[in-house]
C-alpha cells in the first residue's frame, strides 16, 4: 500500500482531464508495472546466480555437492 500512495500525486495531476474511472485504470496499470519491475529487479539480483547453480547442478553429468566448494 505504501508504494501506491507515493505514486498517486504525480500521476493524478497529469490526468485531470480524463474521467474518474479511466484515470484509475491507467493509474493502476502504471503503478502495477512500476511495482512489478522493482520486485523483479530484486528477484533477479538475488536469484540469478542461485538459478544458474541450480540449473548447473541438475544438468548431466550431475556434479557432486562438495565440488561446488572444493578448489580441485
Amino acid at each position, binding site marked *: 500500500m505504501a508504494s501506491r500512495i507515493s505514486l498517486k500525486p504525480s500521476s493524478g495531476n497529469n490526468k485531470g482531464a480524463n474521467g474518474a474511472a479511466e484515470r484509475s485504470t491507467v493509474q493502476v496499470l502504471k503503478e502495477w508495472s512500476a511495482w512489478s519491475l522493482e520486485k523483479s*529487479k530484486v528477484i*533477479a539480483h538475488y536469484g540469478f546466480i542461485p538459478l*544458474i547453480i541450480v540449473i*548447473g*547442478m541438475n*544438468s548431466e553429468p550431475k556434479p557432486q555437492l562438495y*565440488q561446488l566448494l572444493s*578448489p580441485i
Partner: protein
Amino acid sequence: MAGFPPPGATILGDDAAEKKIDEVGKKKVDYFNLPCPIPFEELQREAIMSLKPELFEGMRFDFTKGLNPKFSLSHSVFMGPMELPSQGAETLKIPTAHYEFGANFIDPKLMLIGRVLTDGRLTARVKCDLTDDLSLKANAQLSNEPNMSHGMINFDYKGKDYRTQLQLGDGSLFGASYIQSITPHLSLGGEVFWAGQHLKSGVGYAARYENDKMVKLACAMHVPFASLLWVATGQVASTGMIAMSYVQKVSEKVSLATDFMYNYLSRDVTASVGYDYILRQARLRGKLDSNGCASAFLEERLNMGLNFVLSAEIDHKKSDYKFGFGLTVG
C-alpha cells in the same frame, strides 16, 4: 623416361589445375544462395579483437573450475588502481581490490553467465535460442544503489541471407538493425535507435567486405597455396561518428589491423594501427594510436590450463602509464 611420370598423367594434371584456377576465378555468383551475414553488432569484430584487447592495470587472478562440460564456477581477484572520470587533465586513480564470483552454464541452446562483485553488483547475461532462427539475448547490470541498474534485451532473427535485430533497453531505449548479404563478400546494413531518457535518436549505416583470396601456385606434384584474408568495414551514424576498419591476415600467425574513427560533429579524429600475433604458446597484440597511446597485451600459455597475462598501456599525451600482470587458471 623411367623417372618421369607418363605424359598422359601430366597433361591431365595440368588440365585439372587449370580447371580449378578457372573455377576460382570465374565462379558464377548465385544471388539466391548468398551466405548469411554476421550480426550487425559484430561487424567490426576482427578489428576489435585485434585492436582492443582487455587492457588492465594492477594484478589480476582468475580461476575457473569446471564441474561439468556445461557448468563452471569462476573466482576472480583484482587489485589495482581504478580510474575515476575527472574533469581536468589529471587522471584520478584510487586503489581498489575486489573479488568476483561467477557461474556459467553453457549449452548449445541456452547460455547463462552471472558475475557478482563484493559490493553487490551483478552482471547477468542470458542467451537463449527460442527456435532455429529466433534467438533472445539479455544482459543486465544490477546494483544495490538506486538508479544504477541497467538492462537490455535483444531479439535476433536470422533469415536466409539477412539478419534483423530488435533491441529494448531500460530508460526507454529502442533500437532495430538489419544487415543483408549483397554478394558473397559484401554485406550492407543499417540501424536505427531511439533513447528516450537521453532524448537521443539516430540512424546508422554499415558495410562490410571480406575477401578470402586463394592464390594457387602449381608446381609438379603439389599445389601449395597461401590464403589471404582481409576485411574492410565502414560505419556511419547520425551521432556524427564515422568508423572504418581494415584487417589483413598476412599469414596464419600474423594479422595486421587498422582503425579510423572520425566524429564530424565534434571534429575528433582517432586512427590506430595494430598487430596480432597468434603463436602456438602465446598471443601478442599491440597497437599504436594517434592520441599518442601505445599498448600491448600478451597472453602466454605456461602449461595446460595456466595462462600468464601481461598488459601495458603508455599514454604519452596524458602521461598515464598502466602496467598489469595476471594469471588465469582453467
